[in-house]
């Protein structure tokens, strides 16, 4: 269905892939084109700021890899120094320029060969470093990769949104909702008169909420919290995303959340119980997420006063609310 946004996106991505492939084939079959494009690309490098090309924080590992490969390809293309000077079209000029070029080549060839050898080594080294980083990232993202084979964590429902708003009703400062999805919790907080914003690492997840005018941003949760000054939030809500992350990342997130909240602030953890996982989900997501009881334990160990409350009518059946001491 063309009016279906996902279908349209898939269609345009397929066309773009065909264009990239055709462009690649044309470069391979026409060396003159490669030289011309090199010149034009250099002009682009001057006029197109690199920052304009950076993709969103929510880029998948595959997108990051493709971007790195593209950059390495550009470095490779631009690393070759040529001592060939252009030759004129008219006969006399052509002969003169040809002589100049021959002399230039003779004089500069030795130098250019050395620089090219160095560049070649450098590009090789970058590629090797890229492969090593990719292997490390592969290990680090194992849970995330396996997580792609199970359904995404469901968005917060209205019951959960209202329960979180109740827990934070005393907040007199801003609240950050980590992994906000379409923004139901943010919406409930705003309706309760609390200044709130949400952050999520998925563009698609937040699109509906952004269209509604909610203050939702795309960013990696830890990176987002790291930008917030000490003690400037009244509350932090941790939900959805944290159900698919490993203990080290969750520990970092707790530290960041505790740093961001005021002494009278609160951290609310709204996650489903791990024992509710079954079948492939239980197996593929092994080693990720923490049960509400473990969250409560961790927060107590960090010196918080913790309250665990039951919730009915929602996928999340237990809320953990912590107040730093």
């Amino acid at each position, binding site marked *: 269905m*063309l*009016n279906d*946004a996902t*279908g*349209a*996106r*898939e*269609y*345009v*991505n397929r*066309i*773009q892939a065909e*264009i*990239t492939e*055709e*462009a690649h084939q*044309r*470069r391979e079959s026409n060396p003159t*084109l490669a030289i*011309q*494009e090199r010149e*034009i*690309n250099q*002009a*682009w490098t001057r*006029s*197109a*700021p690199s*920052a*304009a*090309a*950076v*993709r*969103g*924080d929510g880029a998948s590992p595959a997108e990051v890899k493709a971007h790195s490969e*593209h950059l390495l390809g550009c470095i490779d293309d631009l690393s070759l120094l040529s001592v060939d000077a252009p030759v004129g079209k008219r006969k006399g000029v052509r002969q003169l320029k040809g002589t100049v070029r021959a002399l230039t080549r003779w004089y500069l060839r030795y130098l250019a060969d050395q620089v090219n050898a160095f560049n070649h080594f450098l590009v090789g080294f970058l590629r090797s470093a890229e492969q090593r980083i990719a292997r490390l990232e592969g290990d680090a993202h194992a849970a995330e990769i396996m997580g792609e084979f199970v359904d995404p964590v469901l968005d917060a429902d209205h019951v959960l949104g209202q329960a979180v708003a109740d827990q934070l009703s005393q907040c007199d400062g*801003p609240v950050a909702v980590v992994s906000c999805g379409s923004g139901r919790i943010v919406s409930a907080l*705003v309706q309760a008169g609390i*200044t709130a*914003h949400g952050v999520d690492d998925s*563009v698609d997840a937040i*699109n509906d909420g*952004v*269209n*509604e*005018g*909610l*203050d939702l*941003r*795309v*960013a990696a949760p830890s990176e*987002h919290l790291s*930008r*917030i*000054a000490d003690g*400037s*939030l009244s509350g932090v809500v941790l939900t959805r995303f944290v159900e698919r992350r490993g203990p080290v990342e969750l520990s970092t997130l707790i530290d960041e959340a505790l740093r961001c909240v005021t002494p009278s602030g609160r951290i609310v953890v709204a996650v489903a119980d791990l024992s509710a996982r079954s079948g492939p989900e239980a197996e593929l997501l092994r080693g990720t997420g923490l049960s509400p009881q473990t969250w409560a334990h961790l927060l107590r160990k960090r010196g918080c006063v913790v309250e665990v409350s039951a919730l009915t009518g929602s996928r999340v059946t237990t809320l953990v609310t912590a107040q730093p001491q």
Partner: protein
Amino acid sequence: MSDITFVAPRYGADVVGGAELGARSLATRLSADGMDVSVLTSRARSFDTWADDYPEGTTIEEGVSVSRFSVDYLRSPNFAASCDRLLRHPEKASMQDAWQWIDEQGPTSNDLLEAVAEVDRGVLSFTPYMYHPAVRGVTVARVPTVLHAAAHPEPPLRLPVFDDLFNSVSGIAHYSRLEQRLVLDRFPSTVLTPQVVMGLPVEAPDFEIDPVRARQTFGLGDEPFVVFLGRVLRSKGTHELVDFFNATRERRGNGKLVIVGPVVDEIPKSKGVVCVGSVSDEHKFGLVAAADALINPSPLESFSLVVLEAWLAGTPVLVNGWCGPTRDHCEQSGGGLWYSNFVEFEVSLNRLLDDVDLRDRLAQAGHAYVTESFSWPAVRRRYQRLLSQIS
């Protein structure tokens, strides 16, 4: 006193510029919806010198009260050259040099600033970030402020003088998600400032779009053509577009590039390129609807109204893949293609010119995207959410 007061360097139906068009578009629509809206601006039509063009004083334009003030001095013709050194390493500029740059950038008007300081009700809405009225105006504001920054990844954004501006406004309305990311990266402390990715309202014109008449008027015959819309500026990629287009045309043997908009930086004459200058809205939409595609080669856009207007007119787009916001529109909507180098440009253009089915599919997807996300009710809902948070 108004519910909302826009502060812009220039304002008027014949002022060309994305942020200025955005301000006018919001102001007139909010006014039509019953809000009390006013505008404080300079008398200038062009930013080259900020020379007084419009009459001084207050007029009612499309329901909006517009007050224009004379500038204290004109912008020096050597301004661009004189700030070249400063903008090579803007992050290293001293505050004094950066403030001097703002004052020279203009439009500098003490009367305008006094009017800003007198606003004691509603919200002050500044746009764009880079000019004197916003940077100085925010410091004298007495009511909550919104910044429509229209920020691009350009050197001036890195000048230290803008930290105070972004950190002191009450709320920020971004044109796109990528603009929001750029601002959060450059000004991390805005992380707690209420903000919204609002976009701008884009709606079909209230006249019938006539592509046949546009083709006839500009003598385009039956040849396939693509259109560029906007100011002809080197920094907007127009010159690269002309080079790319000519190289492509030489190989394929047909096609025209029609350039619509005021020429700031002259482009060399060539056989396949037709410059029609500024035209009426009727002709503009007619040309866009008649074109096989609209091309936006700019690497620096924060929203790009023309891309969305092209989709409304039923025309697919081809954009510079290095420009985050325009590429994001294409990726999100499935309504356009993008290129990152010359060969991709040539392959994409050939496909667009030769494949009717592709053009129709892209245009249809783009149209759905605009009507769903950028209708006036959708944009107003987002804006009002922000206003209610900061008021």
